[in-house]
Protein backbone atom coordinates (compact mmCIF):
# COMPACT_ATOMS: atom_id res chain seq x y z
CA UNK A 1 0.00 0.00 0.00
CA UNK A 2 1.32 3.38 -0.92
CA UNK A 3 1.08 6.17 1.58
CA UNK A 4 0.30 9.36 -0.26
CA UNK A 5 0.38 11.81 2.58
CA UNK A 6 1.26 14.70 0.31
CA UNK A 7 -0.85 16.54 -2.19
CA UNK A 8 0.36 16.28 -5.76
CA UNK A 9 1.78 19.78 -6.13
CA UNK A 10 4.00 19.10 -3.15
CA UNK A 11 5.66 16.20 -4.97
CA UNK A 12 7.85 18.50 -7.07
CA UNK A 13 10.04 19.87 -4.26
CA UNK A 14 10.24 16.28 -2.99
CA UNK A 15 11.68 15.20 -6.30
CA UNK A 16 14.12 18.07 -6.24
CA UNK A 17 15.64 17.08 -2.89
CA UNK A 18 15.56 13.38 -3.68
CA UNK A 19 17.34 13.89 -6.99
CA UNK A 20 20.11 15.80 -5.23
CA UNK A 21 20.71 12.86 -2.90
CA UNK A 22 20.37 10.31 -5.69
CA UNK A 23 23.08 12.20 -7.58
CA UNK A 24 25.28 12.22 -4.49
CA UNK A 25 24.90 8.44 -4.32
CA UNK A 26 25.31 7.67 -8.01
CA UNK A 27 27.60 10.33 -9.51
CA UNK A 28 30.77 9.14 -7.74
CA UNK A 29 30.20 5.64 -9.12
CA UNK A 30 29.57 7.13 -12.54
CA UNK A 31 32.89 9.00 -12.38
CA UNK A 32 34.61 5.71 -11.58
CA UNK A 33 32.93 4.17 -14.62
CA UNK A 34 33.96 7.09 -16.89
CA UNK A 35 37.51 6.83 -15.68
CA UNK A 36 37.63 3.13 -16.41
CA UNK A 37 37.01 3.77 -20.12
CA UNK A 38 39.10 6.95 -20.38
CA UNK A 39 42.57 7.05 -22.00
CA UNK A 40 45.24 7.75 -19.39
CA UNK A 41 46.41 10.83 -21.29
CA UNK A 42 43.03 12.48 -20.90
CA UNK A 43 43.04 12.55 -17.09
CA UNK A 44 44.97 15.81 -16.79
CA UNK A 45 42.43 17.84 -18.75
CA UNK A 46 39.26 15.96 -17.93
CA UNK A 47 39.46 14.31 -14.54
CA UNK A 48 35.73 13.87 -13.85
CA UNK A 49 33.67 14.08 -17.03
CA UNK A 50 32.80 11.43 -19.58
CA UNK A 51 35.69 10.44 -21.86
CA UNK A 52 36.00 12.09 -25.25
CA UNK A 53 37.30 8.84 -26.63
CA UNK A 54 36.30 5.46 -25.25
CA UNK A 55 39.22 3.19 -24.48
CA UNK A 56 38.12 -0.32 -23.56
CA UNK A 57 41.72 -1.48 -23.67
CA UNK A 58 41.99 -0.40 -20.00
CA UNK A 59 40.21 -3.57 -18.98
CA UNK A 60 42.55 -6.09 -20.64
CA UNK A 61 45.48 -3.97 -19.45
CA UNK A 62 44.28 -4.12 -15.85
CA UNK A 63 43.39 -7.79 -16.20
CA UNK A 64 46.95 -8.64 -17.24
CA UNK A 65 48.69 -6.23 -14.85
CA UNK A 66 46.77 -7.66 -11.90
CA UNK A 67 46.91 -11.29 -13.11
CA UNK A 68 43.16 -11.32 -12.80
CA UNK A 69 42.65 -14.70 -14.43
CA UNK A 70 44.06 -16.21 -11.26
CA UNK A 71 42.57 -13.62 -8.89
CA UNK A 72 39.08 -13.81 -10.33
CA UNK A 73 39.21 -17.56 -9.95
CA UNK A 74 40.32 -17.16 -6.32
CA UNK A 75 37.34 -14.96 -5.54
CA UNK A 76 34.95 -17.24 -7.42
CA UNK A 77 36.22 -20.21 -5.44
CA UNK A 78 35.75 -18.38 -2.14
CA UNK A 79 32.26 -17.19 -3.10
CA UNK A 80 30.96 -20.55 -4.30
CA UNK A 81 32.65 -22.54 -1.55
CA UNK A 82 31.28 -20.28 1.17
CA UNK A 83 27.79 -20.08 -0.33
CA UNK A 84 27.55 -23.87 -0.55
CA UNK A 85 28.99 -24.66 2.87
CA UNK A 86 27.15 -21.86 4.62
CA UNK A 87 23.82 -22.69 2.97
CA UNK A 88 24.23 -26.37 3.80
CA UNK A 89 24.72 -25.85 7.53
CA UNK A 90 22.20 -23.00 7.71
CA UNK A 91 19.46 -24.89 5.87
CA UNK A 92 19.78 -27.83 8.23
CA UNK A 93 19.73 -25.58 11.30
CA UNK A 94 17.01 -23.29 9.95
CA UNK A 95 14.79 -26.28 9.23
CA UNK A 96 15.34 -27.71 12.69
CA UNK A 97 14.66 -24.41 14.46
CA UNK A 98 11.56 -23.78 12.34
CA UNK A 99 9.92 -27.18 12.29
CA UNK A 100 11.56 -29.62 14.69
CA UNK A 101 11.89 -27.34 17.72
CA UNK A 102 14.67 -29.24 19.48
CA UNK A 103 14.77 -28.95 23.23
CA UNK A 104 16.92 -25.99 24.10
CA UNK A 105 16.47 -24.33 20.71
CA UNK A 106 16.23 -20.95 22.43
CA UNK A 107 19.73 -21.51 23.79
CA UNK A 108 21.00 -22.00 20.24
CA UNK A 109 19.11 -18.98 18.99
CA UNK A 110 20.57 -16.83 21.77
CA UNK A 111 24.05 -18.19 21.13
CA UNK A 112 23.79 -17.31 17.42
CA UNK A 113 22.38 -13.87 18.23
CA UNK A 114 25.26 -13.11 20.57
CA UNK A 115 27.54 -14.52 17.87
CA UNK A 116 26.27 -11.89 15.43
CA UNK A 117 27.09 -9.04 17.79
CA UNK A 118 30.60 -10.16 18.80
CA UNK A 119 33.07 -7.78 17.13
CA UNK A 120 35.44 -9.70 14.85
CA UNK A 121 38.37 -8.07 16.64
CA UNK A 122 37.70 -10.15 19.74
CA UNK A 123 38.43 -13.48 18.07
CA UNK A 124 40.47 -12.66 14.98
CA UNK A 125 43.86 -13.02 16.66
CA UNK A 126 43.28 -16.37 18.43
CA UNK A 127 41.64 -17.57 15.22
CA UNK A 128 44.74 -16.53 13.29
CA UNK A 129 46.98 -18.46 15.69
CA UNK A 130 44.66 -21.47 15.51
CA UNK A 131 44.67 -21.36 11.70
CA UNK A 132 48.45 -21.16 11.78
CA UNK A 133 48.58 -24.33 13.93
CA UNK A 134 46.22 -26.10 11.53
CA UNK A 135 48.15 -24.89 8.44
CA UNK A 136 45.00 -23.19 7.16
CA UNK A 137 46.60 -19.79 6.60
CA UNK A 138 46.90 -18.88 2.93
CA UNK A 139 44.40 -21.55 1.94
CA UNK A 140 41.00 -21.00 0.42
CA UNK A 141 39.49 -23.79 2.50
CA UNK A 142 40.49 -21.93 5.64
CA UNK A 143 38.82 -18.74 4.50
CA UNK A 144 35.71 -20.59 3.27
CA UNK A 145 35.26 -22.08 6.74
CA UNK A 146 35.59 -18.63 8.31
CA UNK A 147 33.17 -16.99 5.88
CA UNK A 148 30.64 -19.77 6.39
CA UNK A 149 30.78 -19.33 10.15
CA UNK A 150 30.53 -15.53 9.88
CA UNK A 151 27.43 -15.67 7.70
CA UNK A 152 25.75 -18.75 9.17
CA UNK A 153 23.79 -17.03 11.99
CA UNK A 154 22.24 -14.53 9.61
CA UNK A 155 21.45 -17.23 7.03
CA UNK A 156 20.02 -19.55 9.68
CA UNK A 157 17.61 -16.90 10.95
CA UNK A 158 16.60 -15.90 7.43
CA UNK A 159 15.89 -19.52 6.49
CA UNK A 160 14.13 -20.23 9.77
CA UNK A 161 11.79 -17.27 9.36
CA UNK A 162 10.89 -18.52 5.89
CA UNK A 163 10.43 -22.20 6.73
CA UNK A 164 8.33 -21.44 9.78
CA UNK A 165 5.62 -20.18 7.40
CA UNK A 166 5.51 -23.43 5.38
CA UNK A 167 2.23 -25.22 6.23
CA UNK A 168 2.62 -27.94 8.85
CA UNK A 169 0.04 -30.14 7.08
CA UNK A 170 2.53 -30.91 4.31
CA UNK A 171 5.03 -32.25 6.83
CA UNK A 172 2.39 -34.18 8.74
CA UNK A 173 1.16 -35.80 5.55
CA UNK A 174 4.67 -36.85 4.56
CA UNK A 175 5.20 -38.23 8.03
CA UNK A 176 2.03 -40.31 7.78
CA UNK A 177 3.33 -41.66 4.49
CA UNK A 178 6.31 -42.98 6.39
CA UNK A 179 8.98 -40.47 5.39
CA UNK A 180 11.75 -39.96 7.94
CA UNK A 181 12.98 -36.54 9.02
CA UNK A 182 15.83 -36.44 6.52
CA UNK A 183 13.55 -37.37 3.63
CA UNK A 184 11.10 -34.69 4.72
CA UNK A 185 13.93 -32.17 4.75
CA UNK A 186 15.24 -33.08 1.30
CA UNK A 187 11.98 -33.81 -0.50
CA UNK A 188 9.63 -31.24 1.03
CA UNK A 189 11.38 -28.45 2.93
CA UNK A 190 14.21 -27.88 0.42
CA UNK A 191 12.17 -27.73 -2.81
CA UNK A 192 9.69 -25.36 -1.18
CA UNK A 193 12.40 -23.07 0.10
CA UNK A 194 14.15 -22.09 -3.10
CA UNK A 195 13.22 -18.38 -2.80
CA UNK A 196 14.96 -18.05 0.55
CA UNK A 197 17.85 -20.21 -0.65
CA UNK A 198 18.35 -17.80 -3.54
CA UNK A 199 18.13 -14.72 -1.31
CA UNK A 200 20.49 -16.13 1.31
CA UNK A 201 22.92 -17.31 -1.38
CA UNK A 202 23.03 -13.86 -2.97
CA UNK A 203 23.65 -12.13 0.36
CA UNK A 204 26.37 -14.57 1.42
CA UNK A 205 28.01 -14.33 -2.00
CA UNK A 206 27.97 -10.54 -1.86
CA UNK A 207 29.44 -10.50 1.64
CA UNK A 208 32.26 -12.84 0.64
CA UNK A 209 33.01 -11.01 -2.61
CA UNK A 210 33.35 -7.70 -0.73
CA UNK A 211 34.98 -8.93 2.49
CA UNK A 212 38.21 -7.19 3.42
CA UNK A 213 39.43 -7.73 7.01
CA UNK A 214 39.67 -11.54 7.02
CA UNK A 215 40.97 -11.70 3.46
CA UNK A 216 43.67 -9.20 4.42
CA UNK A 217 44.66 -11.12 7.53
CA UNK A 218 44.41 -14.76 6.50
CA UNK A 219 45.72 -14.62 2.91
CA UNK A 220 49.11 -12.95 2.56
CA UNK A 221 50.36 -14.91 -0.46
CA UNK A 222 49.48 -12.79 -3.55
CA UNK A 223 48.77 -15.98 -5.51
CA UNK A 224 45.80 -16.78 -3.29
CA UNK A 225 44.41 -13.29 -2.69
CA UNK A 226 40.84 -12.45 -3.72
CA UNK A 227 39.72 -9.40 -5.71
CA UNK A 228 39.22 -7.11 -2.70
CA UNK A 229 42.72 -7.28 -1.27
CA UNK A 230 44.30 -7.38 -4.74
CA UNK A 231 42.50 -4.16 -5.61
CA UNK A 232 43.90 -2.67 -2.41
CA UNK A 233 47.49 -3.51 -3.38
CA UNK A 234 46.72 -2.51 -6.97
CA UNK A 235 45.85 0.99 -5.72
CA UNK A 236 49.30 1.29 -4.18
CA UNK A 237 51.15 -0.29 -7.12
CA UNK A 238 49.61 1.89 -9.80
CA UNK A 239 49.11 4.90 -7.59
CA UNK A 240 48.87 7.45 -10.37
CA UNK A 241 47.49 5.34 -13.17
CA UNK A 242 43.84 6.07 -12.55
CA UNK A 243 42.73 4.48 -15.80
CA UNK A 244 44.11 1.13 -14.73
CA UNK A 245 42.91 1.48 -11.12
CA UNK A 246 39.39 2.41 -12.18
CA UNK A 247 39.19 -0.44 -14.67
CA UNK A 248 40.23 -2.86 -11.91
CA UNK A 249 37.60 -1.43 -9.56
CA UNK A 250 34.88 -1.65 -12.21
CA UNK A 251 35.74 -5.32 -12.71
CA UNK A 252 34.88 -5.80 -9.05
CA UNK A 253 31.67 -3.76 -9.30
CA UNK A 254 30.36 -5.20 -12.58
CA UNK A 255 29.19 -8.63 -11.34
CA UNK A 256 27.44 -6.97 -8.39
CA UNK A 257 25.79 -4.36 -10.61
CA UNK A 258 24.48 -7.05 -12.96
CA UNK A 259 23.17 -9.24 -10.13
CA UNK A 260 21.67 -6.19 -8.43
CA UNK A 261 19.73 -5.31 -11.58
CA UNK A 262 18.38 -8.87 -11.80
CA UNK A 263 17.62 -9.41 -8.13
CA UNK A 264 17.16 -5.92 -6.60
CA UNK A 265 14.28 -6.87 -4.38
CA UNK A 266 16.02 -9.95 -3.03
CA UNK A 267 19.19 -8.02 -2.24
CA UNK A 268 17.35 -5.18 -0.55
CA UNK A 269 14.98 -7.35 1.47
CA UNK A 270 17.73 -9.81 2.37
CA UNK A 271 20.22 -7.18 3.47
CA UNK A 272 17.70 -5.24 5.51
CA UNK A 273 15.98 -8.28 7.04
CA UNK A 274 18.58 -8.41 9.81
CA UNK A 275 17.57 -4.90 10.72
CA UNK A 276 13.88 -5.64 10.78
CA UNK A 277 13.40 -9.17 12.04
CA UNK A 278 14.23 -8.39 15.65
Amino acid sequence: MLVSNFRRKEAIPNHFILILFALLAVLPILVLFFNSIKPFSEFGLNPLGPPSEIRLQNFPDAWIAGEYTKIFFNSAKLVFGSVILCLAVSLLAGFSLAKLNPKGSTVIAIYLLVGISIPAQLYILPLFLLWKELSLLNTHVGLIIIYSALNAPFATFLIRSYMIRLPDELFDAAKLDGANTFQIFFRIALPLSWPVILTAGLIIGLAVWNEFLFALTFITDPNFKPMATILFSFQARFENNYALQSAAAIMMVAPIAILFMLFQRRFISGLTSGGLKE
Partner: protein
Amino acid sequence: MNFLSKKSYIAWYFVIPVVFIHLFVIGIPSILSLALCLTDWSGLGKINYVGFENFIELFDDRYFKKAIFHNILWTIIFLTVPVCIALMCAYLLTGIKRGQMFYRLAFFFPYMLASVVNCQIWKYLFHPIHGLGGFFESIGIEALASSPFTTKETSLYAAAFVDGWHFWGFLVVIYLTGMYQVDNHLYEAADIEGASKFQKFRYITLPMIRPIFIFSLMIIIIWSVPVFDYVYILTGGGPAYSSEVVANYLYTHAFVRFNVGYASAVGTLMFIYVIFIVGIFGLLRKLGWEI
Protein backbone atom coordinates in the same frame (compact mmCIF):
# COMPACT_ATOMS: atom_id res chain seq x y z
CA MET B 1 5.01 -28.60 18.38
CA ASN B 2 7.61 -31.28 17.80
CA PHE B 3 5.37 -33.14 15.39
CA LEU B 4 8.04 -34.62 13.17
CA SER B 5 9.73 -37.01 15.49
CA LYS B 6 9.31 -38.31 18.95
CA LYS B 7 13.03 -38.52 19.36
CA SER B 8 14.26 -34.97 19.76
CA TYR B 9 17.89 -35.92 19.24
CA ILE B 10 17.19 -36.05 15.49
CA ALA B 11 16.32 -32.36 15.67
CA TRP B 12 19.74 -31.82 17.22
CA TYR B 13 21.58 -33.56 14.37
CA PHE B 14 20.36 -30.76 12.12
CA VAL B 15 21.73 -28.05 14.37
CA ILE B 16 25.11 -29.61 15.14
CA PRO B 17 26.92 -28.51 11.94
CA VAL B 18 26.12 -24.83 12.39
CA VAL B 19 26.92 -24.88 16.09
CA PHE B 20 30.16 -26.76 15.45
CA ILE B 21 31.45 -24.44 12.72
CA HIS B 22 30.42 -21.35 14.67
CA LEU B 23 32.07 -22.55 17.89
CA PHE B 24 35.19 -23.50 15.98
CA VAL B 25 35.63 -20.12 14.24
CA ILE B 26 34.01 -17.65 16.62
CA GLY B 27 33.01 -19.19 19.95
CA ILE B 28 36.22 -20.86 21.05
CA PRO B 29 38.61 -18.18 19.74
CA SER B 30 36.49 -15.59 21.55
CA ILE B 31 36.81 -17.49 24.82
CA LEU B 32 40.55 -17.86 24.20
CA SER B 33 40.78 -14.13 23.70
CA LEU B 34 38.92 -13.49 26.94
CA ALA B 35 41.52 -15.69 28.67
CA LEU B 36 44.59 -14.35 26.86
CA CYS B 37 43.82 -10.78 27.86
CA LEU B 38 45.14 -11.68 31.31
CA THR B 39 48.54 -12.74 29.94
CA ASP B 40 51.57 -11.11 28.36
CA TRP B 41 51.83 -13.64 25.53
CA SER B 42 53.59 -12.56 22.34
CA GLY B 43 52.28 -15.43 20.22
CA LEU B 44 55.37 -17.57 20.85
CA GLY B 45 56.91 -19.10 23.92
CA LYS B 46 55.69 -19.14 27.46
CA ILE B 47 52.37 -17.69 28.53
CA ASN B 48 52.59 -15.69 31.75
CA TYR B 49 49.56 -14.74 33.76
CA VAL B 50 49.73 -11.04 34.53
CA GLY B 51 46.28 -10.33 35.94
CA PHE B 52 44.78 -7.02 34.94
CA GLU B 53 48.10 -5.46 33.98
CA ASN B 54 47.10 -5.13 30.31
CA PHE B 55 44.00 -3.20 31.28
CA ILE B 56 45.89 -0.95 33.65
CA GLU B 57 48.38 -0.24 30.89
CA LEU B 58 45.56 0.37 28.41
CA PHE B 59 43.88 2.99 30.56
CA ASP B 60 47.22 4.78 30.68
CA ASP B 61 47.80 4.51 26.94
CA ARG B 62 47.08 7.88 25.38
CA TYR B 63 46.79 6.47 21.86
CA PHE B 64 44.16 4.03 23.05
CA LYS B 65 42.26 6.84 24.73
CA LYS B 66 42.50 8.81 21.52
CA ALA B 67 41.14 5.84 19.57
CA ILE B 68 38.22 5.47 21.99
CA PHE B 69 37.46 9.17 21.68
CA HIS B 70 37.45 8.81 17.88
CA ASN B 71 35.08 5.84 18.08
CA ILE B 72 32.73 7.90 20.25
CA LEU B 73 32.88 10.75 17.73
CA TRP B 74 32.26 8.25 14.95
CA THR B 75 29.20 6.90 16.77
CA ILE B 76 27.82 10.39 17.32
CA ILE B 77 28.35 11.35 13.69
CA PHE B 78 26.57 8.21 12.49
CA LEU B 79 23.72 8.62 14.96
CA THR B 80 23.01 12.08 13.58
CA VAL B 81 24.00 12.80 9.98
CA PRO B 82 22.99 9.60 8.11
CA VAL B 83 19.97 9.13 10.39
CA CYS B 84 18.59 12.61 9.68
CA ILE B 85 19.24 12.42 5.95
CA ALA B 86 17.75 8.93 5.72
CA LEU B 87 14.66 9.91 7.73
CA MET B 88 14.12 12.90 5.49
CA CYS B 89 14.61 10.96 2.26
CA ALA B 90 12.40 8.08 3.37
CA TYR B 91 9.68 10.52 4.39
CA LEU B 92 9.89 12.39 1.10
CA LEU B 93 9.82 9.08 -0.77
CA THR B 94 6.47 8.17 0.80
CA GLY B 95 5.06 11.31 -0.78
CA ILE B 96 5.84 10.49 -4.38
CA LYS B 97 4.43 7.90 -6.70
CA ARG B 98 6.62 8.04 -9.77
CA GLY B 99 10.27 7.09 -9.61
CA GLN B 100 10.00 5.43 -6.18
CA MET B 101 11.97 2.40 -7.26
CA PHE B 102 14.59 4.45 -9.07
CA TYR B 103 15.42 6.46 -5.95
CA ARG B 104 15.46 3.41 -3.77
CA LEU B 105 17.93 1.62 -6.04
CA ALA B 106 20.11 4.71 -6.39
CA PHE B 107 20.30 5.23 -2.63
CA PHE B 108 20.92 1.59 -1.89
CA PHE B 109 23.50 0.77 -4.54
CA PRO B 110 26.58 2.17 -2.72
CA TYR B 111 25.72 -0.12 0.20
CA MET B 112 26.35 -3.11 -2.09
CA LEU B 113 29.86 -2.07 -3.05
CA ALA B 114 33.08 -3.23 -1.44
CA SER B 115 34.85 -0.91 0.97
CA VAL B 116 37.97 -1.02 -1.22
CA VAL B 117 36.01 0.27 -4.19
CA ASN B 118 34.22 3.03 -2.27
CA CYS B 119 37.50 4.17 -0.76
CA GLN B 120 39.14 4.29 -4.15
CA ILE B 121 36.31 6.40 -5.57
CA TRP B 122 36.54 9.00 -2.82
CA LYS B 123 40.31 9.03 -2.63
CA TYR B 124 40.22 10.01 -6.26
CA LEU B 125 37.42 12.56 -5.88
CA PHE B 126 39.20 14.23 -2.97
CA HIS B 127 42.54 14.18 -4.75
CA PRO B 128 44.02 17.70 -4.73
CA ILE B 129 45.03 17.65 -8.40
CA HIS B 130 42.95 15.06 -10.20
CA GLY B 131 39.74 15.19 -8.26
CA LEU B 132 37.64 18.00 -6.88
CA GLY B 133 40.55 19.66 -5.08
CA GLY B 134 41.06 22.32 -7.76
CA PHE B 135 37.35 22.96 -7.91
CA PHE B 136 37.11 23.43 -4.15
CA GLU B 137 40.10 25.76 -4.23
CA SER B 138 38.55 27.89 -6.97
CA ILE B 139 35.35 28.37 -4.99
CA GLY B 140 37.34 29.20 -1.89
CA ILE B 141 37.06 26.07 0.29
CA GLU B 142 40.73 25.88 1.18
CA ALA B 143 40.20 22.98 3.58
CA LEU B 144 39.39 20.61 0.73
CA ALA B 145 42.08 21.87 -1.63
CA SER B 146 44.43 19.27 -0.19
CA SER B 147 43.34 15.70 0.41
CA PRO B 148 41.24 15.55 3.59
CA PHE B 149 42.55 12.04 4.23
CA THR B 150 46.11 13.25 4.78
CA THR B 151 45.24 16.32 6.81
CA LYS B 152 45.29 15.91 10.57
CA GLU B 153 42.24 18.05 11.25
CA THR B 154 39.96 16.31 8.77
CA SER B 155 41.14 12.71 8.34
CA LEU B 156 38.66 11.15 10.77
CA TYR B 157 35.70 13.08 9.41
CA ALA B 158 36.67 12.32 5.82
CA ALA B 159 36.81 8.56 6.54
CA ALA B 160 33.48 8.79 8.38
CA PHE B 161 32.01 10.66 5.43
CA VAL B 162 32.92 7.90 2.97
CA ASP B 163 31.58 5.18 5.29
CA GLY B 164 28.40 7.20 5.86
CA TRP B 165 27.98 7.78 2.14
CA HIS B 166 27.98 4.03 1.63
CA PHE B 167 25.72 3.33 4.62
CA TRP B 168 22.84 5.81 4.64
CA GLY B 169 20.88 4.14 1.79
CA PHE B 170 20.50 1.11 4.04
CA LEU B 171 18.78 3.30 6.63
CA VAL B 172 16.46 4.78 4.00
CA VAL B 173 15.16 1.34 3.10
CA ILE B 174 14.68 0.34 6.74
CA TYR B 175 12.80 3.53 7.60
CA LEU B 176 10.75 3.29 4.43
CA THR B 177 9.57 -0.20 5.39
CA GLY B 178 8.41 1.19 8.71
CA MET B 179 6.71 4.19 7.17
CA TYR B 180 4.69 2.05 4.79
CA GLN B 181 3.16 0.27 7.75
CA VAL B 182 1.69 3.51 9.09
CA ASP B 183 -2.09 3.61 8.77
CA ASN B 184 -3.12 6.07 6.05
CA HIS B 185 -6.16 7.19 8.04
CA LEU B 186 -3.89 8.92 10.50
CA TYR B 187 -2.53 11.15 7.76
CA GLU B 188 -6.01 11.80 6.36
CA ALA B 189 -7.22 12.85 9.79
CA ALA B 190 -4.20 15.13 10.14
CA ASP B 191 -4.93 16.65 6.74
CA ILE B 192 -8.44 17.50 7.85
CA GLU B 193 -7.00 19.16 10.93
CA GLY B 194 -4.74 21.16 8.63
CA ALA B 195 -1.43 19.72 9.86
CA SER B 196 1.74 20.71 8.03
CA LYS B 197 4.17 18.25 6.45
CA PHE B 198 6.53 18.62 9.34
CA GLN B 199 3.81 18.24 11.96
CA LYS B 200 2.66 15.04 10.31
CA PHE B 201 6.23 13.77 10.38
CA ARG B 202 6.76 14.79 13.99
CA TYR B 203 3.46 13.61 15.46
CA ILE B 204 2.51 10.66 13.26
CA THR B 205 5.42 9.20 11.30
CA LEU B 206 8.12 9.37 13.95
CA PRO B 207 6.07 7.87 16.80
CA MET B 208 4.72 5.15 14.52
CA ILE B 209 8.14 3.99 13.32
CA ARG B 210 9.69 4.22 16.78
CA PRO B 211 10.50 0.50 17.14
CA ILE B 212 12.42 0.44 13.85
CA PHE B 213 13.98 3.80 14.59
CA ILE B 214 15.28 2.77 18.01
CA PHE B 215 16.52 -0.50 16.57
CA SER B 216 18.43 1.38 13.88
CA LEU B 217 20.11 3.47 16.57
CA MET B 218 21.15 0.31 18.37
CA ILE B 219 22.74 -1.27 15.32
CA ILE B 220 24.53 2.00 14.53
CA ILE B 221 26.01 2.05 18.03
CA ILE B 222 27.05 -1.60 17.74
CA TRP B 223 28.41 -1.28 14.22
CA SER B 224 30.45 1.78 15.16
CA VAL B 225 32.58 -0.35 17.48
CA PRO B 226 34.40 -2.60 14.99
CA VAL B 227 34.84 0.10 12.31
CA PHE B 228 37.96 -0.88 10.43
CA ASP B 229 37.92 -1.05 6.62
CA TYR B 230 37.35 2.61 5.85
CA VAL B 231 39.91 3.85 8.34
CA TYR B 232 42.54 1.26 7.45
CA ILE B 233 42.22 1.79 3.69
CA LEU B 234 41.77 5.58 3.62
CA THR B 235 44.06 6.84 6.35
CA GLY B 236 45.62 3.87 8.13
CA GLY B 237 44.70 5.65 11.36
CA GLY B 238 46.95 8.57 10.57
CA PRO B 239 48.34 11.08 10.08
CA ALA B 240 49.81 11.04 13.57
CA TYR B 241 46.95 8.98 15.07
CA SER B 242 44.46 11.68 14.03
CA SER B 243 42.01 9.08 12.73
CA GLU B 244 43.02 6.10 14.86
CA VAL B 245 40.08 3.94 15.91
CA VAL B 246 40.01 1.07 18.36
CA ALA B 247 39.78 -1.69 15.76
CA ASN B 248 42.75 -0.36 13.82
CA TYR B 249 44.71 0.08 17.04
CA LEU B 250 44.00 -3.53 17.93
CA TYR B 251 44.98 -4.67 14.46
CA THR B 252 48.36 -2.96 14.73
CA HIS B 253 49.05 -4.52 18.12
CA ALA B 254 47.86 -7.93 16.98
CA PHE B 255 49.42 -8.31 13.55
CA VAL B 256 52.27 -5.82 13.42
CA ARG B 257 53.64 -5.95 16.98
CA PHE B 258 52.25 -9.35 18.02
CA ASN B 259 51.20 -8.17 21.46
CA VAL B 260 48.70 -10.99 21.85
CA GLY B 261 47.78 -10.22 25.45
CA TYR B 262 47.45 -6.50 24.90
CA ALA B 263 45.39 -6.89 21.72
CA SER B 264 43.13 -9.41 23.45
CA ALA B 265 42.54 -6.90 26.22
CA VAL B 266 41.38 -4.35 23.64
CA GLY B 267 39.13 -6.96 22.04
CA THR B 268 37.70 -7.89 25.43
CA LEU B 269 36.81 -4.28 26.16
CA MET B 270 35.11 -3.98 22.76
CA PHE B 271 33.12 -7.11 23.49
CA ILE B 272 32.08 -5.96 26.97
CA TYR B 273 30.92 -2.64 25.55
CA VAL B 274 28.82 -4.29 22.82
CA ILE B 275 27.21 -6.71 25.26
CA PHE B 276 26.54 -3.77 27.58
CA ILE B 277 24.75 -1.87 24.79
CA VAL B 278 22.71 -4.91 23.75
CA GLY B 279 21.88 -5.47 27.42
CA ILE B 280 20.64 -1.90 27.86
CA PHE B 281 18.34 -2.15 24.87
CA GLY B 282 17.12 -5.53 26.07
CA LEU B 283 16.44 -4.07 29.50
CA LEU B 284 14.55 -1.12 28.03
CA ARG B 285 12.39 -3.57 26.12
CA LYS B 286 11.71 -5.54 29.30
CA LEU B 287 10.75 -2.31 31.04
CA GLY B 288 7.99 -1.91 28.52
CA TRP B 289 9.58 0.34 25.94
CA GLU B 290 8.29 -0.45 22.52
CA ILE B 291 11.49 -1.44 20.83
